[in-house]
């Protein structure tokens, strides 16, 4: 099986790292946009509940939205590097395990494996935050932990499953076929 697989077109190690990093940053962007949308709605509700700010309603709304968006974007930029590193490490592990677990022929198995890898990384991160940094789940920290840890990791686990499943369904990535020996990202 391994011999067959090595002659199959597949994503190179370098390309896997690149894709993983890119996906990590892209998910950070998507999460940031979702947060900005949420914050814009909630701040708008409060501003509209207060009649007549001296600075004008339109200006107050626009400056609040854009200030929220800018601050969130800058925080996302700071988070992009760790997200890229996590994405790259995850992609490497998934690539290796897809081969070892013979999951390339089964999208369902590949999806489960991808999600499991992400779950493993997530649990390690949670252990690091709770054990290493001493952050505990309390009523005061629940919202913060949900926002900064639980929701992002949930998205990460789901994305890991979906991407792994789609990866093995990509034309040229599946089980070995005779005569196919090119590696995506290493051809030419």
């Amino acid at each position, binding site marked *: 099986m391994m011999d067959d697989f090595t002659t199959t077109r597949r994503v190179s190690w370098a390309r896997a790292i690149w894709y993983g990093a*890119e996906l990590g940053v*892209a998910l950070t*962007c998507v999460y940031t946009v979702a947060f900005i949308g949420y*914050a814009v709605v*909630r*701040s708008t509700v*409060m*501003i509209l*509940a*207060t*009649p*007549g*700010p*001296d*600075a004008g309603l339109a*200006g*107050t709304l*626009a*400056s*609040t939205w*854009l*200030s*929220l*968006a*800018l*601050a969130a*974007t*800058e*925080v996302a*930029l700071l988070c992009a590097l760790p997200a890229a590193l996590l994405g790259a490490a995850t992609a490497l592990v998934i690539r290796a395990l897809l081969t070892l677990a013979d999951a390339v022929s089964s999208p369902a198995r590949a999806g489960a494996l991808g999600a499991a890898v992400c779950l493993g990384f997530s649990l390690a991160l949670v252990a690091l935050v709770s054990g290493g940094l001493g952050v505990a789940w309390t*009523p*005061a*920290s629940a*919202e*913060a*932990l949900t*926002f*900064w840890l639980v929701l992002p990791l949930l998205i990460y686990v789901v994305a890991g499953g979906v991407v792994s499943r789609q990866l093995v369904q990509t*034309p040229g990535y599946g089980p070995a076929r005779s005569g196919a020996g090119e590696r*995506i990202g290493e051809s030419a």
Partner: protein
Amino acid sequence: MKATRHRYRLRFWATALALAVGLGALYGLIIRPYHMRWGATDAEVAMAMPGDALIAANAVVSTRAVTIHAPTATVWAWLVQTGQNRGGDWHSYAWLENLFAADMRAGEALDPRWQQIQVGDQLYMHAGAASNPVMVASVAGLDPGRALWLKAGWSFLLRPIDAQTTRLVVRYPMRPDEFLNPAITFSIFEPAHFVMESGMLLGIKRRAERDPWPAAIRAYPHITAEGLREGKPSLKHPPLSRFSR
């Protein structure tokens, strides 16, 4: 197929980059000049505030203001119970602060327990302030019913316009190193501070206007001095010109 995916990815990153650059330019050129003096008149921007002497030389100062249709005593009562450890919040976006584990609880009623305030009192900006002095705003000075100023020159001034109307003016000096380094201070902390401070002014306005003469105020005659009731500064308080340049 591969070329199409590549095009989509390039388009995604180009769009993200363009949005980020456009957002930064829009903020720097239009939004920032507007929010640094949000709601304040030219005179309020230029006037001296009681905490000005505490402002660091390299601080970037904002002056913001709001008109509140409530007596000065009522606005003062809301102002002095500010703090996570006092009334429960800073009258702003508690849900946003709680994303940073601030543990704010929106205080929607005046609480007589927090109507006394004195120099040295600590206003917590976060639940962890007890063990982290950075998250504490200490009262540096006050003029009861008129002005309150915190460490580093963060000042709140109440200007009675008439018996039912008050101007609440706030000045905040932002030091470039306030949040790790100048780049982070001015790109993250400054816009976030505008959101929170304007939210605070609007929060006080909304609460004060909901019940301009609450029972808690009537129970505290030292706040509802005759001058405040008549819309004029109390004789116990220095004239407003004391803070004027």
